Protein backbone atom coordinates (compact mmCIF):
# COMPACT_ATOMS: atom_id res chain seq x y z
CA UNK A 1 0.00 0.00 0.00
CA UNK A 2 1.36 3.41 -0.97
CA UNK A 3 0.50 6.15 1.53
CA UNK A 4 1.46 9.68 0.52
CA UNK A 5 1.15 12.96 2.38
CA UNK A 6 1.63 15.93 0.11
CA UNK A 7 2.09 19.23 1.89
CA UNK A 8 2.98 22.87 1.47
CA UNK A 9 5.15 24.39 4.17
CA UNK A 10 3.08 27.60 4.10
CA UNK A 11 0.11 25.86 5.69
CA UNK A 12 0.55 24.81 9.32
CA UNK A 13 -1.87 21.86 9.22
CA UNK A 14 0.44 19.21 7.79
CA UNK A 15 2.00 18.30 11.14
CA UNK A 16 -1.43 17.50 12.58
CA UNK A 17 -2.37 15.66 9.42
CA UNK A 18 0.81 13.61 9.61
CA UNK A 19 0.16 12.72 13.26
CA UNK A 20 -3.44 11.74 12.50
CA UNK A 21 -2.34 9.69 9.50
CA UNK A 22 0.26 7.85 11.56
CA UNK A 23 -2.35 7.10 14.23
CA UNK A 24 -4.74 5.75 11.59
CA UNK A 25 -2.02 3.52 10.16
CA UNK A 26 -1.19 2.14 13.60
CA UNK A 27 -4.88 1.52 14.24
CA UNK A 28 -5.07 -0.39 10.96
CA UNK A 29 -2.07 -2.49 11.91
CA UNK A 30 0.13 -0.83 9.31
CA UNK A 31 3.57 0.71 9.58
CA UNK A 32 3.33 4.47 10.29
CA UNK A 33 6.85 4.98 9.01
CA UNK A 34 5.76 4.00 5.52
CA UNK A 35 4.21 7.43 4.91
CA UNK A 36 5.83 9.11 1.94
CA UNK A 37 6.14 12.83 2.63
CA UNK A 38 6.21 14.98 -0.47
CA UNK A 39 6.70 18.72 -0.16
CA UNK A 40 5.07 20.87 -2.81
CA UNK A 41 7.12 24.03 -3.19
CA UNK A 42 5.96 25.81 -6.32
CA UNK A 43 2.81 26.42 -8.31
CA UNK A 44 4.33 24.30 -11.07
CA UNK A 45 4.83 21.46 -8.56
CA UNK A 46 1.22 21.87 -7.47
CA UNK A 47 -0.01 21.60 -11.02
CA UNK A 48 2.14 18.62 -11.93
CA UNK A 49 0.99 16.73 -8.82
CA UNK A 50 -2.64 17.89 -9.13
CA UNK A 51 -2.21 19.32 -5.65
CA UNK A 52 -5.30 21.32 -4.63
CA UNK A 53 -4.07 22.24 -1.17
CA UNK A 54 -2.19 21.21 1.92
CA UNK A 55 -2.43 18.62 3.30
CA UNK A 56 -3.39 16.06 0.67
CA UNK A 57 -3.40 12.39 1.59
CA UNK A 58 -3.47 9.72 -1.09
CA UNK A 59 -3.73 5.99 -0.52
CA UNK A 60 -2.54 4.06 -3.56
CA UNK A 61 -2.99 7.27 -5.51
CA UNK A 62 -6.56 7.88 -4.36
CA UNK A 63 -7.35 11.05 -2.41
CA UNK A 64 -8.97 10.30 0.96
CA UNK A 65 -11.53 13.04 0.24
CA UNK A 66 -11.48 13.48 -3.54
CA UNK A 67 -11.56 17.15 -4.57
CA UNK A 68 -14.50 18.53 -6.51
CA UNK A 69 -12.98 20.76 -9.14
CA UNK A 70 -10.80 22.86 -6.85
CA UNK A 71 -7.93 24.50 -8.72
CA UNK A 72 -4.38 23.37 -8.05
CA UNK A 73 -2.20 25.72 -6.04
CA UNK A 74 -0.21 26.53 -2.93
CA UNK A 75 -2.93 26.96 -0.34
CA UNK A 76 -4.40 25.38 2.75
CA UNK A 77 -6.98 22.80 1.90
CA UNK A 78 -10.49 23.02 3.29
CA UNK A 79 -11.99 19.73 4.45
CA UNK A 80 -15.45 18.92 5.71
CA UNK A 81 -15.74 16.71 8.74
CA UNK A 82 -18.56 14.19 8.73
CA UNK A 83 -20.52 16.38 11.12
CA UNK A 84 -20.33 19.24 8.59
CA UNK A 85 -17.65 21.32 10.29
CA UNK A 86 -14.86 22.88 8.27
CA UNK A 87 -11.40 21.65 9.12
CA UNK A 88 -7.81 21.99 7.91
CA UNK A 89 -7.42 18.19 8.07
CA UNK A 90 -9.56 15.35 6.75
CA UNK A 91 -11.96 13.50 9.00
CA UNK A 92 -10.01 10.62 10.60
CA UNK A 93 -12.93 8.36 9.67
CA UNK A 94 -12.35 9.20 5.99
CA UNK A 95 -8.69 8.28 6.37
CA UNK A 96 -9.56 5.01 8.08
CA UNK A 97 -12.11 4.15 5.39
CA UNK A 98 -9.59 4.90 2.64
CA UNK A 99 -7.04 2.64 4.32
CA UNK A 100 -9.60 -0.14 4.65
CA UNK A 101 -10.67 0.21 1.02
CA UNK A 102 -7.07 0.08 -0.13
CA UNK A 103 -6.40 -2.97 2.05
CA UNK A 104 -9.40 -4.78 0.57
CA UNK A 105 -8.31 -3.85 -2.94
CA UNK A 106 -4.76 -5.05 -2.26
CA UNK A 107 -6.05 -8.35 -0.84
CA UNK A 108 -8.28 -8.77 -3.88
CA UNK A 109 -5.33 -8.26 -6.21
CA UNK A 110 -3.43 -11.03 -4.42
CA UNK A 111 -6.27 -13.61 -4.46
Amino acid sequence: MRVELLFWEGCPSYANAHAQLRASLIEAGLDPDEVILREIETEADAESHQFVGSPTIRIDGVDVQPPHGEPTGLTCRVYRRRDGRFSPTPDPADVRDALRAAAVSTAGDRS
Partner: protein
Amino acid sequence: MPAIGDRAPAFSLTDTSGAPQQLDGAPATVVVFTCNHCPYALAWHPRILDVARDYSAAGVRVLAINPNDAERYPRDSPAQMRARVEQGEFEGVPYLRDESQQVARAYDAKTTPDVFVLDAGGVLRYRGAPDADYDDPSQNARWLRDALDAVLEGGTPDPAETVPVGCSIKWRP
Protein backbone atom coordinates in the same frame (compact mmCIF):
# COMPACT_ATOMS: atom_id res chain seq x y z
CA MET B 1 2.22 47.71 14.95
CA PRO B 2 0.24 48.19 18.15
CA ALA B 3 1.23 46.51 21.40
CA ILE B 4 -1.25 45.68 24.13
CA GLY B 5 -2.14 49.02 25.73
CA ASP B 6 -1.45 51.03 22.56
CA ARG B 7 -4.12 52.85 20.60
CA ALA B 8 -5.04 50.64 17.64
CA PRO B 9 -4.73 52.10 14.14
CA ALA B 10 -7.84 53.84 12.86
CA PHE B 11 -9.15 52.81 9.46
CA SER B 12 -11.96 53.24 7.04
CA LEU B 13 -12.79 50.28 4.83
CA THR B 14 -15.85 49.46 2.80
CA ASP B 15 -18.05 46.48 3.50
CA THR B 16 -19.57 44.23 0.86
CA SER B 17 -22.38 46.72 0.22
CA GLY B 18 -19.88 49.52 -0.36
CA ALA B 19 -20.61 51.28 2.94
CA PRO B 20 -17.61 52.70 4.80
CA GLN B 21 -16.95 51.24 8.23
CA GLN B 22 -14.72 52.72 10.92
CA LEU B 23 -13.98 52.28 14.59
CA ASP B 24 -16.76 54.20 16.28
CA GLY B 25 -16.12 54.11 20.00
CA ALA B 26 -18.29 51.10 20.77
CA PRO B 27 -17.85 49.79 24.33
CA ALA B 28 -15.65 47.10 22.79
CA THR B 29 -14.74 46.29 19.21
CA VAL B 30 -13.51 43.00 17.81
CA VAL B 31 -11.40 43.34 14.67
CA VAL B 32 -10.87 39.93 13.13
CA PHE B 33 -8.73 39.41 10.07
CA THR B 34 -10.28 36.53 8.19
CA CYS B 35 -10.88 35.23 4.70
CA ASN B 36 -12.85 32.81 2.54
CA HIS B 37 -10.28 30.20 1.64
CA CYS B 38 -8.58 29.30 4.91
CA PRO B 39 -9.85 26.22 6.80
CA TYR B 40 -8.83 27.68 10.15
CA ALA B 41 -10.81 30.86 9.49
CA LEU B 42 -13.79 28.77 8.38
CA ALA B 43 -13.54 26.44 11.37
CA TRP B 44 -13.60 29.33 13.84
CA HIS B 45 -16.11 31.43 11.93
CA PRO B 46 -19.31 30.10 13.59
CA ARG B 47 -17.80 30.85 16.99
CA ILE B 48 -16.99 34.43 15.94
CA LEU B 49 -20.58 34.89 14.77
CA ASP B 50 -21.85 33.52 18.07
CA VAL B 51 -19.73 36.09 19.90
CA ALA B 52 -21.16 38.87 17.72
CA ARG B 53 -24.69 37.72 18.49
CA ASP B 54 -24.12 37.13 22.21
CA TYR B 55 -22.41 40.48 22.84
CA SER B 56 -24.47 42.71 20.57
CA ALA B 57 -26.76 43.71 23.46
CA ALA B 58 -23.67 44.97 25.30
CA GLY B 59 -22.85 47.17 22.31
CA VAL B 60 -19.88 45.13 21.15
CA ARG B 61 -19.08 45.58 17.49
CA VAL B 62 -17.40 42.86 15.42
CA LEU B 63 -15.69 43.81 12.17
CA ALA B 64 -14.32 41.12 9.86
CA ILE B 65 -11.56 42.21 7.49
CA ASN B 66 -10.30 40.22 4.51
CA PRO B 67 -6.82 41.44 3.54
CA ASN B 68 -5.72 38.60 1.24
CA ASP B 69 -4.32 39.05 -2.25
CA ALA B 70 -7.33 38.03 -4.32
CA GLU B 71 -5.32 37.84 -7.53
CA ARG B 72 -3.43 34.83 -6.23
CA TYR B 73 -6.34 33.59 -4.11
CA PRO B 74 -9.50 34.25 -6.14
CA ARG B 75 -11.77 32.80 -3.47
CA ASP B 76 -10.99 35.96 -1.48
CA SER B 77 -12.25 38.30 -4.18
CA PRO B 78 -14.84 40.98 -3.33
CA ALA B 79 -17.42 39.04 -5.36
CA GLN B 80 -16.81 35.89 -3.32
CA MET B 81 -16.99 37.95 -0.12
CA ARG B 82 -20.33 39.38 -1.22
CA ALA B 83 -21.59 35.92 -2.04
CA ARG B 84 -20.89 34.70 1.49
CA VAL B 85 -22.60 37.73 3.01
CA GLU B 86 -25.63 37.22 0.74
CA GLN B 87 -25.77 33.60 1.85
CA GLY B 88 -26.11 34.82 5.44
CA GLU B 89 -22.68 33.77 6.59
CA PHE B 90 -21.89 37.11 8.24
CA GLU B 91 -25.05 37.82 10.20
CA GLY B 92 -24.41 40.93 12.30
CA VAL B 93 -20.79 41.27 11.17
CA PRO B 94 -19.72 43.71 8.43
CA TYR B 95 -17.23 42.02 6.08
CA LEU B 96 -14.65 44.56 4.98
CA ARG B 97 -12.16 44.48 2.14
CA ASP B 98 -8.58 45.61 2.88
CA GLU B 99 -7.55 45.86 -0.75
CA SER B 100 -4.32 47.77 -0.09
CA GLN B 101 -3.46 45.49 2.84
CA GLN B 102 -2.48 48.64 4.76
CA VAL B 103 -4.80 47.89 7.67
CA ALA B 104 -3.46 44.36 8.05
CA ARG B 105 0.06 45.76 7.98
CA ALA B 106 -0.81 48.49 10.48
CA TYR B 107 -2.16 45.86 12.88
CA ASP B 108 0.72 43.50 12.09
CA ALA B 109 -1.86 40.80 11.41
CA LYS B 110 -0.23 37.43 10.87
CA THR B 111 -2.90 34.90 10.08
CA THR B 112 -6.51 34.31 9.25
CA PRO B 113 -8.00 34.42 11.75
CA ASP B 114 -6.14 36.95 13.89
CA VAL B 115 -8.33 38.62 16.51
CA PHE B 116 -7.90 42.06 18.10
CA VAL B 117 -10.09 43.44 20.90
CA LEU B 118 -10.21 47.19 21.41
CA ASP B 119 -11.81 49.08 24.26
CA ALA B 120 -14.10 52.10 23.93
CA GLY B 121 -11.06 54.36 23.58
CA GLY B 122 -9.67 52.29 20.74
CA VAL B 123 -6.90 50.84 22.89
CA LEU B 124 -5.75 47.33 22.09
CA ARG B 125 -6.63 44.99 24.97
CA TYR B 126 -6.36 41.51 23.44
CA ARG B 127 -4.71 39.98 20.42
CA GLY B 128 -4.47 36.38 19.25
CA ALA B 129 -6.60 33.32 18.60
CA PRO B 130 -10.31 33.09 19.46
CA ASP B 131 -9.63 30.08 21.69
CA ALA B 132 -7.20 27.22 22.19
CA ASP B 133 -8.44 24.79 19.53
CA TYR B 134 -9.96 25.39 16.10
CA ASP B 135 -11.06 21.76 16.09
CA ASP B 136 -13.08 21.92 19.31
CA PRO B 137 -16.32 23.93 19.02
CA SER B 138 -16.90 23.52 22.77
CA GLN B 139 -14.06 26.00 23.30
CA ASN B 140 -16.65 28.56 22.21
CA ALA B 141 -14.11 31.37 21.55
CA ARG B 142 -13.28 31.35 25.25
CA TRP B 143 -10.23 33.63 25.05
CA LEU B 144 -12.15 36.17 23.00
CA ARG B 145 -15.18 36.05 25.31
CA ASP B 146 -12.98 36.39 28.40
CA ALA B 147 -11.25 39.38 26.82
CA LEU B 148 -14.57 41.03 26.02
CA ASP B 149 -15.91 40.39 29.51
CA ALA B 150 -12.80 41.97 31.01
CA VAL B 151 -12.95 45.01 28.72
CA LEU B 152 -16.67 45.54 29.35
CA GLU B 153 -16.01 45.43 33.10
CA GLY B 154 -13.15 47.91 32.75
CA GLY B 155 -10.56 45.27 33.57
CA THR B 156 -7.55 43.76 31.86
CA PRO B 157 -7.86 40.55 29.83
CA ASP B 158 -5.85 37.58 31.00
CA PRO B 159 -4.35 36.36 28.78
CA ALA B 160 -3.98 39.63 26.92
CA GLU B 161 -2.10 37.97 24.11
CA THR B 162 -2.09 34.50 22.56
CA VAL B 163 -0.43 33.14 19.45
CA PRO B 164 -2.67 33.55 16.41
CA VAL B 165 -3.21 30.27 14.58
CA GLY B 166 -4.24 29.92 10.97
CA CYS B 167 -3.21 30.49 7.38
CA SER B 168 -0.64 33.18 6.76
CA ILE B 169 -1.98 36.42 5.34
CA LYS B 170 -1.53 36.32 1.58
CA TRP B 171 0.49 39.44 0.95
CA ARG B 172 0.85 40.85 -2.51
CA PRO B 173 4.20 40.04 -4.11
